[in-house]
């Protein structure tokens, strides 16, 4: 510290001169004054969104490099590159240029692998980030719009991933497109024409790679960048949520300043993410298109799967029992495709709409800046667990064949088990999670009222053994009692003396959400409990 103070005057003068120079040309001083010393709450789970952001930056950097070499053309050529088992094989220019990136451009394979690994990490980090937001209730007012923007980003990220996965025109991605073609054709009314227009004629055609490329490098990234910008602006406007703790209230934000500590941590973290991806890309193969070979409608590989984030949709297709397709009114109704699409659609709509549903049930119009502990919102946490189970069941179904071979099971058995998991699993997960949350809340109450179990056993003069309980200090106690519980809604007639159907629905939902209510310990209860113990 002493060295810092002796050097300070000189340093300050340069820093000051530089900032004045810039400010006089940009008027950024107000911005810096406003934001530079904002407090940014600190918790590991607050960095998950940054993981997504930084891996997206890596995707952009590596992807830009790839565009200089990739050629999105489906013109057929005979491969003449370095990979011996494909020499002379007929393939599209897209495939050949991807092989050239891999084998004939130094470092090209490294960048390609980093791009793909970063894309997988991008979507995974978004998923984990969304789970954090959901389970801590960080989507409540005023952050509902930001939840929606994040949700759209999640969908766009999946679209980015899928379009990118299809570009090399290899056997694996080609069969992926064949599946998309089949699914689109299964849509009522518009399916046949949509597929025809999408592929520029009959499948596979010679247009699709170029079209997906435009989406992949122009339209979708532009949308993602724009929405990320809005997402971050909202984070600044709302200020970050924080966990309950002594001194933290709904009216303040507590943490290290953005400049310099938060900037150092976030900036350093970007390099760490970049570095971790570089490490993975240098050591682990991803999407070995040289094994898959060029797309040809006749061959297929065992274990044909999409990348992980499309897995839930692929899994949903696999779980449908035989025969769900009918001819009715002289038209084909492919429920084996429609049912998975509708189920996934409903699931996604519920995810997007959840903040608004919960706000309507609660009727709470206040702002919430303190994140919930998941146990203190048992029904929400249980709903989240049910959703995760549903998604995980679909996801696992996409690898039913791999599960069968690696665990020596029958694939039919795996499918039947996963059908059970997807339909019954969410209910089991719901009830178990809710009970666990309530039990944890009760335990919290016990701790507040009677202190921690110290493990020390004492013999009383009367011969009785008791365990000594260590009382909590006020700071620890605050973490356990600083939450609000909600009571079920009581229906009251409105001004015209009527009870609307919407009120009935809301009351029923409210009962479902809040009937198992465990309230935080109040001062009175603690005093009463102490009083009891003294007797």
């Amino acid at each position: 510290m002493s060295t810092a103070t002796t050097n300070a005057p000189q340093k300050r003068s340069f820093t000051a001169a530089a900032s004045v120079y810039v400010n006089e040309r940009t008027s950024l001083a107000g911005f810096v004054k406003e934001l530079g010393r904002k407090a940014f709450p600190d918790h590991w789970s607050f960095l998950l969104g940054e993981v997504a952001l930084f891996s997206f930056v890596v995707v952009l950097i590596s992807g830009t490099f790839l565009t200089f070499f990739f050629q999105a053309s489906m013109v057929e050529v005979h491969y003449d590159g370095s990979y011996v088992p494909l020499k002379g094989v007929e393939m599209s220019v897209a495939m050949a240029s991807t092989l050239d990136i891999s084998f004939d451009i130094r470092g090209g394979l490294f960048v390609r692998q980093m791009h793909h690994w970063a894309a997988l990490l991008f979507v995974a980090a978004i998923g984990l980030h969304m789970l954090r937001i959901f389970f801590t209730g960080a989507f409540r007012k005023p952050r509902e719009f930001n939840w929606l923007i994040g949700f759209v980003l999640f969908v766009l990220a999946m679209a980015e991933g899928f379009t990118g996965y299809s570009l090399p025109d290899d056997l694996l991605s080609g069969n992926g497109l064949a599946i998309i073609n089949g699914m689109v054709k299964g849509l009522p009314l518009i399916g046949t024409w949509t597929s025809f227009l999408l592929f520029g004629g009959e499948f596979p055609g010679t247009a699709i790679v170029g079209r997906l490329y435009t989406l992949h490098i122009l339209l979708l990234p532009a949308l993602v960048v724009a929405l990320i910008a809005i997402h971050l602006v909202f984070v600044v406007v709302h200020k970050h949520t924080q966990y309950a703790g002594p001194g933290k209230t709904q009216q303040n934000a507590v943490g290290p300043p953005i400049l310099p500590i938060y900037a150092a941590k976030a900036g350093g973290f970007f390099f760490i993410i970049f570095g971790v991806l570089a490490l993975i890309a240098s050591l682990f193969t991803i999407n070995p298109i040289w094994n898959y070979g060029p797309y040809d409608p006749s061959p297929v590989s065992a274990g044909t799967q999409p990348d992980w984030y499309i897995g839930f949709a692929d899994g949903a297709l696999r779980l449908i029992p035989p025969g769900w397709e009918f001819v009715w009114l002289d038209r084909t109704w492919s429920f084996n495709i429609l049912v998975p699409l509708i189920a996934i659609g409903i699931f996604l709509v519920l995810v997007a709409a959840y903040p608004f549903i919960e706000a309507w049930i609660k009727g709470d119009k206040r702002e919430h800046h303190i994140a919930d502990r998941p146990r203190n919102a048992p029904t929400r946490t249980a709903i989240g667990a049910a959703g995760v189970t549903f998604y995980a069941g679909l996801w696992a179904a996409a690898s039913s064949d791999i599960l069968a071979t690696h665990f020596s099971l029958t694939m039919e058995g795996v499918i039947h088990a996963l059908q059970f998991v997807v339909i019954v699993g969410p209910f089991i997960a719901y009830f178990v999670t809710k009970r666990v949350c309530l039990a944890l809340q009760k335990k919290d109450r016990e701790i507040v009222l009677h202190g921690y179990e110290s493990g020390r056993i004492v013999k009383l003069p009367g011969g009785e053994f008791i365990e000594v309980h260590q009382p909590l200090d006020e700071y620890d106690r605050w973490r356990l009692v600083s939450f609000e519980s909600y009571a079920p809604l009581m229906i009251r007639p409105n001004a015209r003396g009527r009870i609307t159907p919407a009120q009935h629905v809301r009351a029923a939902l409210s009962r479902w959400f809040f009937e198992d209510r465990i309230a935080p310990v109040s001062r009175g209860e603690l005093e009463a409990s102490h009083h009891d113990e003294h007797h």
Partner: protein
Amino acid sequence: MAQDDTSGADLVAADSSHAAPAASPGTAVIAADAFENPGFPPHRPRVTDENPERQKRAQRTVYTLFYLSILGSIWSIAAYMLFPIESNDVGMVRLNNMFFGLGAALALLAIGFGVVHWGKAVMTDVELVDERHPIGGSPETQAAAVQVFQDSDRESGFTRRTAIRNSLIGALLVFPIPALVLFRGFAPQDQLPVPLLSHTMWKKGTRLALDPSGVPIRAADVTIGSAFHVIPEGLQDLEHGKLEEKAKAAVLLMRLNPDELNEREDRKDWSYDGIVAYSKICTHVGCPVALYEQHTHHLLCPCHQSQFDVANHCEVIFGPAARALPQLPIAIDDEGYLVAQSDFTEPVGPSFWERH
């Protein structure tokens, strides 16, 4: 039980939110004797704040990491040159990828860990408290914004002049439709999807040929237990649309013991001495169904696990597919080669709306 819009008004607890004075807490229960926020606990110094030795060590770690990063970058450049890619040598690609990448990873990770460590251990451990303000701004600002909208509505007559407004909305709804028409040009203008989907390259007398060589197949060559991957003869000579035709015409040819083959009455003459030909394109979403088990006579689709029983005209026995695989009627010609009797009698591949 709580009821809406009443409970919070006179019971605002110390820590409840303040969005606006009138903001309703809904069904939240606010206890009158809730605990009060005890305020911030005393600041706990870090080791590096108390122990100058540790502070020095942390600083050393940070700049050592930065120097290490420079080494990593230099190593990366060296590896780029030390492990060039030589034509036809995949092993060199592996080395190039690994060593160039490890250098880059070291350079990046060292910067990252160095900067974070600097922030954590060396920078002054400040914790600030910011006050939050209602997101909606002050009531005056909100009222002013509402006023702007009301003024502009009054001045434009947007809600009053309904004929103008509604016709504008109508025009706005209709104007994108011409853009939809443009999408027709995404596929050839002179083609329609349904006729294309309903026919394949197979026709009467087309020889069954091996995929990919195009060599025609004699019935005698197909021994029991065999599975031949088949394309129509002449496919490989097509100038255009080879893959599109193959995507519809790919066929799997199998020979079963005729005793084990259970054929429908009207299709008895579609096979030849236990040799049957079925479309290889799954009726679910169109993956190639190519996994043939010669003893169980099951065909399996590797994409979604639909299973078809070849011995029973390829009906679905498991998985999401609903229809049997279409059968190609075959016969032999004068020279003993297998030929198609006709095209498929139904559209192959995944279902589509107009199929019936």
